[in-house]
């Protein structure tokens, strides 16, 4: 239950082509996160799967059945919305049992199910309240409860934590993760927050410009981004991208600084290195050096912005407290095993 297959799906709103040919399969019990910048089509893709928008072309199958032209109600999916979307005139109990009521379950059955779900989500004290009397976190918990009560084959989450404050977001994230392990149901989760994506997902699909740029396990995206977009989107602070060229002795930056003596097949044009894969070192070991223009000390880590002559600004993340202050010279060494190269078309070059 909960196998979802999307084949060559396109979606246009009028003359705006939003989803430009998307294919993927989600297996039973998998937690998939759609991530991408706003306007990339991730929420639209979710609404297409939900059946809230008709698709322009392509097919969607759930458990082997073609549901492309089925109404949302007939797809056996439940959805949690960013704005909670609770019925304002109904109590929490009736909100959670609304779908069951429409499905024709008796009051006794409905309330029994709701009581079970309420216990899991610790909602019992709130069951008789109206949504207006709940906090944001409680409302979203009720919305999740409403989804669970329906016992759908898969859950769809549309940026469910975006309206919550930072602390609540972290605890709700952990709860959703636990819930998924407990329910073992397929979940598709849309977010623009890459921390949510990295922590929750079995598999992340990075959307941009209406297509999937890359999909894979969170660490796979981190370690082997397939193109410049994914490289800079995943990871915080962003990966440094520096222009580079092939030379006789390997690859060098455009000012002639050698980066590696390995030969990279293809024609490397962009060199990528994550801030956490740059080390401070002695002057003689350095790849590049520059003056620190900004130092942010977070306690565990420090972020340094180093202005390298002829190259530009380079972000560096060093563990521990303040080692260098603003205005000092930083000597930087790249981790040879953590380098990324991309060609002119911004695609990854394997080493």
């Amino acid at each position, binding site marked *: 239950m909960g196998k979802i297959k999307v084949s060559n799906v396109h979606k246009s709103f009028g003359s705006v082509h939003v989803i430009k040919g998307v294919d993927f399969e989600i297996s039973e019990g998998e937690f998939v996160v759609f991530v991408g910048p706003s306007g990339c089509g991730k929420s639209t893709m979710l609404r297409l799967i*939900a059946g809230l928008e008709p698709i322009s072309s392509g097919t969607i199958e759930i458990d082997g059945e073609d549901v492309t032209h089925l109404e949302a109600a007939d797809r056996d999916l439940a959805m949690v919305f960013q704005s909670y979307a609770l019925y304002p005139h109904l109590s929490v109990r009736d909100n959670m049992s609304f779908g069951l009521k429409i499905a024709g379950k008796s009051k006794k059955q409905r309330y029994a199910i709701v009581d079970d779900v309420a216990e899991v989500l610790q909602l019992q004290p709130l069951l008789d309240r109206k949504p207006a009397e709940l906090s944001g976190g409680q409302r979203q918990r009720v919305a999740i409860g409403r989804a669970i009560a329906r016992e759908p084959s898969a859950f769809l989450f549309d940026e469910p934590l975006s309206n919550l404050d930072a602390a609540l977001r972290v605890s709700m994230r952990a709860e959703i993760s636990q819930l998924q392990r407990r329910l073992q149901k397929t979940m598709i989760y849309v977010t623009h927050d890459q921390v949510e994506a990295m922590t929750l997902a079995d598999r992340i699909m990075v959307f941009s410009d209406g297509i999937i740029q890359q999909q894979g396990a969170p660490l796979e995206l981190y370690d082997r981004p397939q193109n410049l977009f994914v490289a800079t989107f995943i990871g915080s602070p962003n990966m440094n991208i520096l222009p580079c060229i092939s030379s006789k002795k390997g690859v060098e930056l455009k000012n002639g600084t050698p980066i590696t003596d390995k030969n990279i097949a293809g024609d490397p044009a962009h060199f990528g290195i994550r801030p956490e894969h740059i080390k401070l070192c002695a002057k003689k070991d350095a790849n590049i050096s520059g003056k620190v223009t900004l130092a942010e000390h977070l306690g565990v880590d420090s972020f340094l912005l180093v202005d390298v002559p002829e190259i530009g600004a380079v972000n560096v993340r060093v563990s521990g407290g303040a080692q260098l202050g603003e205005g000092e010279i930083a000597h930087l060494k790249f981790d040879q095993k953590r380098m990324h190269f991309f060609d002119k078309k911004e695609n990854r070059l394997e080493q």
Partner: protein
Amino acid sequence: MKRFNSNQAFSGWMFLAPFLVSLGVFFLWAILRTAWFSFTDYNLFAEPNFVGLENFTSLVLDELFIFALRNSISFALIVTGAQTILALLLAILVNSAARAKGVARTIFYFPSIMSSAAMTLIFLWLFQRQGLMSGMVGNFVNLRWVILSFFVIAIVIQLALVAMARRKYIGVKLFDPYFLLISVLVALISAVIIRMGGFVPVYDEKLLISWLNTREVFLFMPRTLWSVALMNIFTTVPTLMLLFLAGLQSVPISLYDAAKMDGANVFHRFFNVTLPSLTPVTFAVVTLGLIGTLQMFDQVAILGAAAPLESRVTLAFYTYYNTFPPGGSPNIGLASASALTLGVLTVLIVFLQRRFGIKEKLE
């Protein structure tokens, strides 16, 4: 908080003055005067003498006043109910129009911009004994079998088409618009053939309905007032529709999405999302409607001799009628008593509505 100095206070009062003056003169003073006159025998010319409750007892004993009371209350309830429901349905219709929403809104709003006097004159003409309304109803009655066959054929074809399609595809709706178009067209052609071929009886009765000039009472309201109600609804619905439209546009879309995911069909969504979300607007529409209809005056006044007095008299008209009785001397005392009754009645009905009917806020 800092107290205002006298200069600031003076400019404050100056800004409030226009409103305070009009409130004082046209509202508070008018009420006090009316209340005082209702206990006197004032007739515009002689000095008023205090007569106690005499005016109120004559009101209760006056058959015309009882008619007016009955007419006003039934008119208010019927028109408010009907116009609220119709305005809501019309707003949903206009709101769901995919194209030309603005044009639809404008067209439906037209009746509201006409003056009620002009509208009443047009309706007077439509409501003639041999007028358009009689003709329409007459046709309907005479062609009842043809019309019935049209509907039966349309429904049968629609059901057949949907049933056939459902064997092949899932998710075909009962009111699929393309099938509906086919069904209606076929039914229309069949109805014409049935009419031409004389397959069902067609009657040729000349119906003469007195829409206005009658003393007949239908249910608890004179037929004349039913006709006036029709006209009143026609002119007020568009304005109320605009209020509902504004309300509809503020209903969050995600609520409809959530309801769709919960399996709610159009009717579930209407009763569980649209209606509850529109509660504050509905309250405003009902309250405005009750106040407006209880004070109904202009349309029955313009009817004039076209209808008998007791069939068209409302409380507001009764007040006017006693202030300026045709051929008699003004009875300001009685008129004031009835005006006061109307005021108290309005407050009472609005209060009862709010207490037991539609609430101001969603709870």
